[in-house]
């Protein structure tokens, strides 16, 4: 047991070799598109919307398809079941997620410069927590909107949670919910962090 901890402590002090640092540099670049592309997208389809409706969740904004009008349309439809309007102002996430992404970029550069596996691992842990928390937060928002329906609404429906991932039939709509490019960029970011650690881990062993 003690040997294991000492091995870990030892490894955390490992310096990052050039390859790992290059990977961290790449990881910084990979985060850039996450500011400009959607984290998540929801597609709604029913017979009377042959082109469907779409909703894109960016790190900093909510955007409807059809030049933004789909969000308006979703709100108009939701008002019949008494759902609160989806408004950017009500999404605190849209404020802290871009902030967090910026911090991740800085922390990655920091790890790159300080060049210790330990710094990368710290970053990876925080990042993983951020990812899980964001998904929970997203789920909670959907749950909240679907469970806080105005009891005086013209159409009464049972409380529901729109799908966070995958397909679900909601009323007359077929709804698909999937991660967007920005989420994939975040996954790649996480993988790159792991790779940067793994590469420096191996090199040291070979050298030793």
């Amino acid at each position: 047991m003690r040997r294991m901890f000492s091995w870990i402590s030892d490894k955390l002090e490992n310096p990052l070799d050039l390859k790992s640092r290059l990977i961290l540099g790449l990881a910084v670049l990979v985060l850039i598109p996450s500011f400009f592309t959607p984290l998540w997208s929801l597609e709604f389809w029913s017979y009377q919307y042959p082109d469907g409706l779409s909703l894109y969740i960016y790190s900093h904004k909510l955007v409807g398809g059809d030049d933004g009008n789909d969000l308006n349309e979703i709100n108009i439809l939701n008002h019949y079941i008494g759902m609160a309007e989806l408004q950017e102002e009500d999404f605190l996430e849209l404020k802290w997620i871009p902030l967090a992404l910026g911090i991740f970029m800085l922390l990655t550069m920091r790890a790159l410069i300080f060049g210790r596996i330990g710094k990368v691992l710290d970053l990876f842990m925080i990042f993983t927590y951020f990812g899980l928390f964001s998904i929970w937060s997203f789920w909670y928002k959907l749950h909240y909107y679907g469970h806080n329906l105005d009891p005086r609404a013209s159409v009464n429906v049972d409380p529901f949670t729109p799908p966070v991932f995958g397909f679900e039939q909601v009323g007359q709509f077929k709804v698909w919910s999937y991660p967007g490019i920005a989420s994939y960029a975040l996954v790649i970011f996480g993988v790159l962090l792991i790779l940067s650690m793994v590469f420096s881990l191996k090199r040291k062993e070979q050298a030793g």
Partner: protein
Amino acid sequence: MFERLSLMKRLFVGVLILTMLAFLAGCGGPEGQRGRAGKGAGRSDVTDAALKTYVPPGDLDEYYLFYSGGHSGQIFVAGVPSMRHISTIPVFSPYPGTGYGFDNESKEMLGDYTWGDSHHPGLSETDGEYDGRWLFINDNAQGRIARIDLRDFKTKQIMTIPHISANHGSSFVTPNTEYITMATRMSVPFPEGTYADVTEYARKYKGVIAGIKVDPKDGHMSLGWEVLMPPFNYDLGDAGKGVSDGWLFWTCYNSEREFIEGGKLEVTASQRDKDYVVMLNWREAEKAIAAGKFKTYKGAKVIDPAKAPGVVYFVGLAKSPHGVDVSPSGQWIIGSGKLSPTTTVFNFEKALKAIENKDFEDTVDGIPVLTYESVREAEIPVGLGPLHTQFDDRGNAYTSLFVESAVAKWKLPPYDPGDTDDAKKMEKYVLEKIPVAYNIGHLVTAEGDSRSPDGNYLVALNKLSKGRHLSVGPSIPESAQLIDISGDKMKLLYDAFTEPEPHYAVMIKADKIETIEVYKKDVEPANKNAVWEPEDTSVKRNGPNVTVKMIAVRSFFAPDVIRVNQGDKVTVHLTNIEQTRDELHGFAINAYNINIVADPGETKSVTFKADKPGVYAFYCTNFCSALHQEMQGYLLVKPRG
């Protein structure tokens, strides 16, 4: 349409039709299933016609067909080849379906008139090709012309000019939409409003033809110039193109220049063997205006052709002519005398030569008449009652024959030397005829007025339908027949029936028209009376004037109560704040004869006097949503103290 149908679909349709035929044969044939219209004229090969006209659900037609609505005052929009009626564009008459003629803007455009007589739609052109921007349409009754914007299929301008009486020779468009025409069909004393008895017809009555200028940016129409003409009836026209670009042509009848009380114009106007084609050089007209060779009457700059030589010429044409049509190249000017069994082809280049050589056979009111023989290329024995001519892309012309109830297909020049002076020899240039049901007036081919007709479809616009449809009593609709002209033989494909009463129509390739389907909030110019949020709506009073700024959205109005006093003048500005395709909202006030319709993103205004005291519900007339029935409110009119 066939590019749009996959081979599989075609096979499927073919098999479907064959199966149906087999089934029907088993039932004792089509006769056993459905009633049949009168035998005789106009039958088609069922399989061929069905394949060529069937547009499966969800598929789109290949062409737009814009029919004039005649004395309904509207434009009808159909798709070709399905011939399905898609929409009606109100122009000269109110149309509650779209609220046209009820809101302030369209009411002001209509003025005091509640109808018009729309005859000849004309599409805007660039380089002699339809450009899909605007559709122009004349009003024969009140001497008006209107412009429809094809971006949203709405009437944007209705214009009237002085001195035009019965604007029939309109609305023909020059190759770059420099001008559209207007012309007097029924001469009256000049200037407009003058009183003179019909006994003074020859001297005091005048015809006027006019060039309406079109702003190339926004299509706005304004009066360019007018030309004072002898008191004939100026009938139909066309604009020159190619070699004849810069010229306008009209036919005219009653060159006898008389209106004898009780003498029957049909008789008195048919005495001379020939009437005329008018040839007007619009660039010369512009020069005459620039040189000050005009007099202003009631604000219109009027050119007297006797004092501005070079602007107008006549050339004789078989009596009582109707259509004059310019071939795609612009060289052949086709005039049809409706009482003659021939159609005349004039050679525009010969006309230019005759003008250059002053080869005139006569002068009428100072207007030179070109020597007929010098200008005429040939007379084509097309058949009885030729009216109008259209063209394909293979050098053929198609002339409607009213009396014969047929379309004649014939070859445009060149002809073998020597043939043109021998009526018998000219017969071989008439290639084929197809009977139509019945009594065709105008006809239109795909892009037929452009420099490059498509040569695939022809629509015969027939005056009579005589039982080709389920009977609807004595007030019988018109018929429009789709004919395939792509092969050697013309083939009848489809019968469609229209409300009264198409005259001319134009057919344009569907992909040339780019429409919007909503008025986007941040794209369209802002309406100063628009409000977009419930909290910005208002009811404001200024003395006896009450102004309401209202929104409509699924499924409510805000405000939904309007309180006024009896006698107030109330203006409601209604903004449909929807931005979703097809979410229209109507606004009708019961017992107040008000119904306006606002399209998504549109603001419509209506002003009325609240003269009836009591409580009146208002509601959404254009079905919008599951709770459309609940979309209502109240107008409370407090009785005078």
